[in-house]
Structure formats: C-alpha cells, structure tokens
C-alpha cells in the first residue's frame, strides 16, 4: 500500500498493511529541515522542500501543513495585525472585532491575500511532487475558534453571557469565509481538512453552549467541505464523549475524530472512544506531544508509543497520531524513536 491507500483504507475502516503514521509533525520538521522556521511554514517552495525532505526521512503517511495558515495567514486576511517572526509561529499583535459594526467589515474581507496565495502555491507544489501517493492534510480552524482570534478569547467567552448575539453574528459572517478558505485549500490539493476546534472544547465551554452557539456553524462548514471533496477530521481536547460532542460531530459529515489531550487531566481513552463511535468513523490516536516526546529520553518515547499501539490492538479505523502540535523543540532523537516504533510495529 502507498500512503494514500493506507490512510484511505484506515479512514474507511478497511484493513491496512501497517499502522498508518500521521503525527502532527510540522513544527519539528520546520526546525529540522526548514531553511528558516518561518519560510518552512509560509513560503511555497521552502515549505514544500521542508515537507518533502521530512517525508523522505520519516516516511509519514501524510503531509501535514497549515500551522502558519491558522496562526497567522487567516487572522491577517481577516484584518488582525499579525507579525511573522523568523523563528517562532506568527503572533497576533492586535485583534480586530470590538463591536457588531466590525462584523460587517470582516464579512467583506478578501481572504486571498498574497500570503494566502503563497501558501496555496506551496500546497500545489506538494500535490504535484507527491503524485497522489501521499495525501495532504491541512490545519484549519472553526468559525468559533477564528472568532476568538479576531475578538480575543476572553471577550468571546464573556460575550457568551453578555452579548451572545455578537457570537452568533460573528460566526455567521465567518462561515462563508471559512468555507471559501477551505475551497481554496481543496482546489490547491488538500485532501484532508484537519478541523481544529480548540476554543470550543469541553475544557473551556459547556456542552450547552456548544450546542447553542457552535454546533450549527460547525455543521455548515464541515458538511460543505465534505461536499467539496475533502475528508474532514475534527480535533478537540477534553472529554468529548461525556460532553456529548462526539454525538453532535457524528451528525455531520466527518471522516474521523482526532481527540486531543493537551492537558494531562483529560486524556481521552481511545478504547472508550472506539466503543462510542463503533464503525461510524475512524480514530486518530492522541500520544502526548508534551510528555516524553518533548522532555523524555528516546527509550521512554518508544515505550509510550508502543503502549499506545498495543492498546489500539488491531482496532479498525486506527491511525497513529499525536494529540496536537509537536513542539519545534522536540529533540530529533525522540521524534525518530516515535517514528521508528510506529513504522516497525506489527500487531500480534
């Protein structure tokens, strides 16, 4: 099987020849292979070169781009003031929505900025080079999470009681823009949309607020991107089973679920998730990028990785991954240990 066949088989819950290996690798590989960190994140050819070099060495089953897109390109396209430092991720210097009248301005934004076009060109280069043998995944953010970028997380969280109309209206304005960005990504060659829903996770907002404010815009975006031909893979931290969010996500056209475990207290049990979703969708594993992978020794990384793989134990629709962004400071020997363990692993 090539990577595309392997990933698609897993997503369709069909047998695979080995565990699909799809970690969130972008930050470390920008450090390992980028001419500069910023260039590898944002600039077409440098971005493509870094990912192709990483693919040669690590044999991932996907190419995963987009941290610069969600961290800087999208907020900038929607009027935030963003800086793009050489050695770290983009920084939003100033938010852009203070009141309802700003929403009208945002709704008219042209998302096809120069930086967006360079990023899309990078995706196109990768698509051409990969010849369909390796799928391209791209990070992407939900209307609610974009809203927190544009207005400020604190403000949106307060608005949920003080001004819920603004939360609704801002998301309504963002849905078509988010879809437009998704359409451009798909046309450039993105196969999988990694739908980041960081700020609406059950660690931060209640299930009631999720249903009342987030579910509808989520369904609109997910369903449309799916209709346009992408596999949409939502990612969320916290106990998404207990919060009922898995059930709501399963009402939409998702192709998999990627649970996060960014906080130690809320690691979602993969077996429990499998029991919940059954054969309705695939599951991405959630090895902690901030545990041994970041601060341990290679043998500890190998042990943790093996434990995850063994726990998955032949589960249909299982894809190995990390629960979120791997740090650019991930020691290379640790990253190699994780990768080696996945590639060599065979379920008994």
């Amino acid at each position, binding site marked *: 099987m090539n990577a595309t066949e392997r990933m698609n088989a897993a997503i369709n819950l069909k047998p695979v020849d080995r565990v699909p290996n799809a970690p969130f690798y972008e*930050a470390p590989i920008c450090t390992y292979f980028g001419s500069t960190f910023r260039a590898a994140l944002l600039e077409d050819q440098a971005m493509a070169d870094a990912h192709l070099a990483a693919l040669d060495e690590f044999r991932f089953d996907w190419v995963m781009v987009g941290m610069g897109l969600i961290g800087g390109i999208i907020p900038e396209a929607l009027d935030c003031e963003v800086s793009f*430092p050489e050695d*770290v*991720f983009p*920084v*939003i210097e100033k938010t852009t929505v203070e009141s309802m009248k700003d929403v009208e301005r945002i709704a008219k934004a042209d998302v096809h900025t120069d930086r967006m076009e360079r990023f899309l060109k990078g995706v196109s280069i990768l698509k051409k080079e990969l010849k369909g043998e390796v799928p391209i995944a791209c990070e992407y953010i939900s209307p609610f999470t974009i809203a927190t970028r544009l207005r*400020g*997380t*604190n403000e949106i*969280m*307060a608005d*949920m*009681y003080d001004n819920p109309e603004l939360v609704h209206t801002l998301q309504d304005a963002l849905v078509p823009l988010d879809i437009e960005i998704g359409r451009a990504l798909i046309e450039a060659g993105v196969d999988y949309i990694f739908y980041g829903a960081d700020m609406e996770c*059950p*660690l*931060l*907002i*209640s299930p009631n*607020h999720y249903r009342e404010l987030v579910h509808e815009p989520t369904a609109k975006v997910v369903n449309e991107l799916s209709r346009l031909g992408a596999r949409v893979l939502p990612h969320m*931290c916290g*106990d998404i089973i*207990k919060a009922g969010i898995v059930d709501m996500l399963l009402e939409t056209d998702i192709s998999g679920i990627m649970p996060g475990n*960014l*906080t*130690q*207290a809320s690691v979602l049990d993969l077996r429990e998730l499998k029991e919940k979703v059954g054969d309705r969708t695939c599951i991405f594993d959630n090895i902690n*990028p*901030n*545990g041994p992978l*970041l*601060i341990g020794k290679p043998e500890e990384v190998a042990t943790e990785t093996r434990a995850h793989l063994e726990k998955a134990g032949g589960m249909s629709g299982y894809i190995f991954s990390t629960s*979120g*962004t*791997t*740090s*650019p*400071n991930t020691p290379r020997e640790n990253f190699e240990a994780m990768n080696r363990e996945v590639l060599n692993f065979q379920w008994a």
Partner: protein
Amino acid sequence: MAIEDIFEAVLTFNKVAVAEGVKAELDAGTEIDSILNEALIGALDVVGKKFSEGEMFVPEMLQAAKAMKAGLEVLKPYLRSESVASKGTVIIGTVKGDQHDIGKNLVAMMIEGAGFEVVDMGVNVDADRFVKAVSEHNAGVLCLSALLTTTMPAMENAVAVIKKSGLAVKTIIGGAPVTVTFADQVGADGYSDDAPSAVELVRKLMAT
C-alpha cells in the same frame, strides 16, 4: 441581604445584587473581613472547585469573577482604611511569543479574589520585563502562562532569567501543555494545572 445572599449572587453572576448586598452589609456594620472572605472569596473558591470538577466552564468563571469584582469595588475604599491588608504581590503574564490570555486571566482573577495584589503584565511578555516588574513591585510570586507547546521554551528562558537575576521571587508555571515534569525540569518553584490550584499554590508559596 445577608452574607449568604452575596455568596449566592456571585454564584449566579448577579453583579447588581452582589454590589447592593455588599453595600447593605457595610451599612449594617458587618465586619469587612467577613464580607470579603466569607461572601466574595468564599464564593469564588466554590466557583474554582466547580470548574475543576467540570461543573462550570470558562464563561461561567468569568461571569462569577465579574460579579465578585462588583462587590470588591464597593469594598475597596474600606479595604484601604481597615486592617485588611494585601497578602502580597503577584506578577502574572503570558510568555513571549504567546498571545493566549484566557488561562492567565482566570488565574489573575482568582488570585486577586483571594486577596493578593495582582500585576497583570498581559501577553507576549519577554523575560526582562518580568524581571523589571518583579523588582519594581517587590513581588513574592511570579506566574508564567503558556498555551502553546511552541512557547514553552520561552517559559523555560523566563524562569532561568529570573533565577539568574537573584530576585527572591517564587516562580509558578502553568497552561494547557505544561506538566509538573516540565516545571521540575526548568526549575520552577511550582506548577498548577488550573486556576483554583494556582491560588492554593500562591497561598502556600507566599506563606514560606
């Protein structure tokens, strides 16, 4: 309105009722300590507990903190003239390269609610600014926040710069990706995984 009613009004996010209740208690001659500790701080402690147990979430914590602040505003003039002294100064900020402020804000509100002076440095704060603030305010505790794995190295750097400065301040680190192992590794004096435990940690470190 009794102390219990103010307590309840904080838990139901009723800012007006909290402010009116505090004023009524002051007029009735109730001790300021009781109003502050039993009604306001007590209620926010309950909010923190409910947050830790997944019964309340960030929007609810923000509303409760706002309600508590409405009461504090009424109390403030009396706090200065009475013997209810500040328990010490805490500097807090999100480290360089990181714009996330929700966790930091919650921790700041909870610590302030617990009776400490809080100097909030905001987001994207470099190590030298932390050093300057600790020195200027003679702070007992410095709280560093990061939401991104990518900015955790800035946290490590800030702790190192503070240690090197020789200032007698305790450092606490926290934020979604931060772990106790990481805290130990970078030499922080403490780690907390949520706002309520950060308050407890500040109380403990200030007492040493």
